[in-house]
């Protein structure tokens, strides 16, 4: 690649014009039909009237062109200080590459959905060719140094405004993306979102946003919560997506609990789903269901606490061997524990043990929650919007998740959290420094399990029925994968991992049969090439790349507060890989 780059860089001047030509072609392509039939993507068969996905393709072409045009103007007119704020050459390369990926994916999606390349109309070809020309030509540009926009002193109100705009865009994107029925359109849109974030990072805008986020953490948290809270209003009263969203939140809440155990304390737990199951079974047996085997029906807040405590007790039980075993052995112990839990729940049916769980029938017909006169099963009309059953639970889960995140973040920053990290790094050294290793390990297990139990108690009511076959090893593997995928030890990472693992299978039904295969391959590839996850914790990233001095220096050079923020970490690694 480097020889290609050397060859190209001799032609930096003309390349700008060629790249511009390619970008214009991409923009023109948006106004031409891409497909022969309307069924593919979001109907891309019109002349002069682009669909939304075509507009997105146009946008990438436009950004490429804008960067290419603005870069020399900026270089000629602006002061050196101003010039270095944005890296428009890098932006142009990124936008052109993003264009190529996007156009190619759109074309492939059309070809797959309609059956063959023959179904592609000229617009699709023009887009791919234009983007390819632009991508190749922009490689010849001088890369320049890192954008310094993130160090730009900005008034707080502007930073907060930036955060709000970004989150509003996220909300619009989430609402729009979830509404896409066509799998090709969903993939294309998802790819676009990832590419857009990447382009912004390359230009340097993402750096500014993450600096703003780091400086206004409470505003960020508040705004994120508001955005998540507003989400049901974007669904027009439809419960289909809210049911998926509720699933994502349950998964995220459980994974967040697991993140304490795995991400912070470094104890791999392969049977974690048992804690969610324990919470769900506890809530089910204490519910008003006609199938509940215990005659006691306390109000839900108490049930929630009991469920958490039952799980925490199990956590203590499973955590106690950690005094003696560690590492891989512990992982296997927890796996065995998860299997024991599942089989035991299956056996407590009255014929192979006392009748508590009704065996594989489980406990169905769990009634909707009715807390303080608010029935979660009924639809409500709020400000003219229909809010259905799953939206009610979504809000409850959002509260639970917020609680778990608060616990997680505070623990992470506290003496306890530092103790966990010390244990993760070197157990003996930690013990020598006076860290109560056994106590902290137990606390990690019990605390994580408590949170999972609370999540499970809500899950029982959302799901209506609780059966042992919901709590199998594969679910534990998914939880671990969610953390690994997103990035161990970070809040954002877990949320991203949960969203990817729960959302993609729902939206990409066309590869339903290949889901697990891809999942397995994903784990292998992630471990091989990016073991720290998509949004890693900076400290942890260093662990995985111990030999990488450049990364370490970069981490040192950066101001401390934005170390852990997503954007900075992302751009840092991209730099390092480029």
């Amino acid at each position, binding site marked *: 690649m480097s020889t290609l780059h050397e060859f190209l860089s001799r032609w930096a001047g003309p390349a700008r014009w060629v790249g511009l030509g390619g970008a214009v072609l991409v923009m023109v392509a948006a106004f031409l039909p891409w497909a022969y039939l309307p069924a593919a993507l979001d109907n891309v068969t019109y002349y002069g*009237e682009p669909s939304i996905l075509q507009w997105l393709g146009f946008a990438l072409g436009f950004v490429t062109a804008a960067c290419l045009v603005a870069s020399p103007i900026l270089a000629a007119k602006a002061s050196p200080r101003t010039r270095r704020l944005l890296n428009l050459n890098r932006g142009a390369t990124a936008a052109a590459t993003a264009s190529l990926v996007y156009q190619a994916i759109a074309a492939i999606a059309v070809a797959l959905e309609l059956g063959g390349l023959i179904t592609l109309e000229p617009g699709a070809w023009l887009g791919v060719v234009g983007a390819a020309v632009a991508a190749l030509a922009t490689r010849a540009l001088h890369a320049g140094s890192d954008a310094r926009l993130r160090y730009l002193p900005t008034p707080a109100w502007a930073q907060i405004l930036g955060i709000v705009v970004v989150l509003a865009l996220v909300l619009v994107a989430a609402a729009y993306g979830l509404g896409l029925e066509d799998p090709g359109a969903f993939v294309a849109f998802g790819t676009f979102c990832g590419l857009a974030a990447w382009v912004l990072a390359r230009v340097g805008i993402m750096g500014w946003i993450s600096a703003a986020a780091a400086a206004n953490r409470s505003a960020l948290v508040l705004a994120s919560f508001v955005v998540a809270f507003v989400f049901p209003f974007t669904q027009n009263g439809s419960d289909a997506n809210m049911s998926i969203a509720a699933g994502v939140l349950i998964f995220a809440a459980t994974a967040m609990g697991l993140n304490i155990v795995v991400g912070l304390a470094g104890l791999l737990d392969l049977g974690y789903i048992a804690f969610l199951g324990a919470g769900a079974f506890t809530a089910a047996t204490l519910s008003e269901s006609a199938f509940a085997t215990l005659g006691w029906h306390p109000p839900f807040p108490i049930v929630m606490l009991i469920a958490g405590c039952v799980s925490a007790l199990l956590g203590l039980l499973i955590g106690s061997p950690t005094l003696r075993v560690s590492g891989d052995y512990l992982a296997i112990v927890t796996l065995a524990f998860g299997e024991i839990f599942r089989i035991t729940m299956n056996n407590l049916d009255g014929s192979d043990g006392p009748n508590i769980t009704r065996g594989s029938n489980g406990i169905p017909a769990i009634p909707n929650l009715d807390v303080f006169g608010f029935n979660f099963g009924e639809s409500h009309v709020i400000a003219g919007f229909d809010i259905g059953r799953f939206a009610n639970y979504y809000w409850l889960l959002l509260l639970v998740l917020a609680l778990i995140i608060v616990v997680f973040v505070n623990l992470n920053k506290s003496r306890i959290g530092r103790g966990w990290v010390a244990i993760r790094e070197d157990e003996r050294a930690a013990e020598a420094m006076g860290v109560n290793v056994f106590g902290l390990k137990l606390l990690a297990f019990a605390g994580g399990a408590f949170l999972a139990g609370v999540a499970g108690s809500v899950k029982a009511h959302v799901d209506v029925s609780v059966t042992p076959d919901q709590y199998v090893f594969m679910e534990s593997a998914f939880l671990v994968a969610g953390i690994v995928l997103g990035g161990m030890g970070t809040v954002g990472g877990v949320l991203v991992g949960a969203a990817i693992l729960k959302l993609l299978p729902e939206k990409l039904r066309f590869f339903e049969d290949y889901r697990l295969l891809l999942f397995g391959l994903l784990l292998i590839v992630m471990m091989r090439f990016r073991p720290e996850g998509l949004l890693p914790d900076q400290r942890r990233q260093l662990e995985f790349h111990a030999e990488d001095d450049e990364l370490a220096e970069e981490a040192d050079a950066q101001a401390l507060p934005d170390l852990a923020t997503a954007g900075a970490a992302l751009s840092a690694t991209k730099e390092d890989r480029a």
Partner: protein
Amino acid sequence: MNRRLAAAGLSGLLIASLALTGCGQRNAEPTASGGGGGKKVAKIGLIAPLSGGLSAMGAGMRNSVDLAVKQANASNAIPGWELQFAAEDDQASPDAGKNAATKLTGDKDVIGVVGPLNSSVGQAIQPIFQSAGIPLVSPANTNPTLTKGADLSKPARAYSTYFRTCTTDDVQGPFAAKYLLSEGIKKVATINDKKAYGQGLATAFAKAFAEGGGTVVSEETINPDDKDFSAVVSKVKAAGPAAVYYGGEYPQAGPLSQQMKAAGLAIPLMGGDGIFDPAFIELAGSTSNGDLATSVGAPAESLDSAKAFVSAYAAAGYKEGYSAYGTYSYDAANAIIEALKVSLPSASSASAARSATVEALNKVKFAGASGQVAFNEFGDNTSRILTVYKVEGGAWKAAKTEDFQ
């Protein structure tokens, strides 16, 4: 420099606003999907495991419903309406099933749904269809509590929109018990796989067998993911039964039969419709001669509607076989179509006809591929014609058909 920033922000907003306005314009146009020559559209849904370990059965269910819908359209069964088919994957898990159910209930064109395969999924999605008022007809849920409620001694229908075309455990088990007793077998052992289907079947069998004067000498359970049954077989053998009744499905029943015979326990193994599958004989090997299974309805050879289904299925050229629940799925889809013949013609839209469809389903009566289809006051199939099949020369042969009361 602030100008640049503003420009970047503006362009972002521009993109978003352009996107949103674009959306408005194009949605105003008539969409091409309405199609069908001016006919109104009603959808029949399916919820089944289309991926994962049970996908072979799920695919058979999907194809059978697809066949029924295609046939209805071809014969113009409901004038002025075009039926469409929407299949959703539940991955055999209640979580995914719930999402599939909300997706179907959120579609205003959906008027009836076939599925699911697993009773555990059924439990999770019953209330979703109940609150949407959409009929759910399961071809495979055999757990009696799904229709009769928690307390079987005081049955009360819990979900008025739930029906099923298969029989429940409390019919097949006693029928098998009666057959064995009539063959002069007085001592049996039962084994079940602890799944809802198998356990229910074995329990119902054991109760009826004891009431009929027989003795159940041993009641064993296994794990559905077990391979090695030698310990259980030795234990059963020591109890000296004259037959083994197995509650479960063929993936375990086949190897169990083979291991029984290999361990010197040369007595027949009997089971329900979950083992009535050619794969059972393949797995059990040549020693399976004499093994028994019960199944609903008269044998396909004696039933014109069943023969018609088998030949139509073959003619449609599906990649997968119709599997254990294909006939029930076909009947479930046809039950919905029969009801639609009553409810749809006068309706303005599919969603408006939902409650009328539920009403009409209660009165449906026709000859299906698995036998006579009609629903009683709980939503269970009234058909009680059952057949005992016996393995002879490497194939299932009908041994006795009876209207079981």
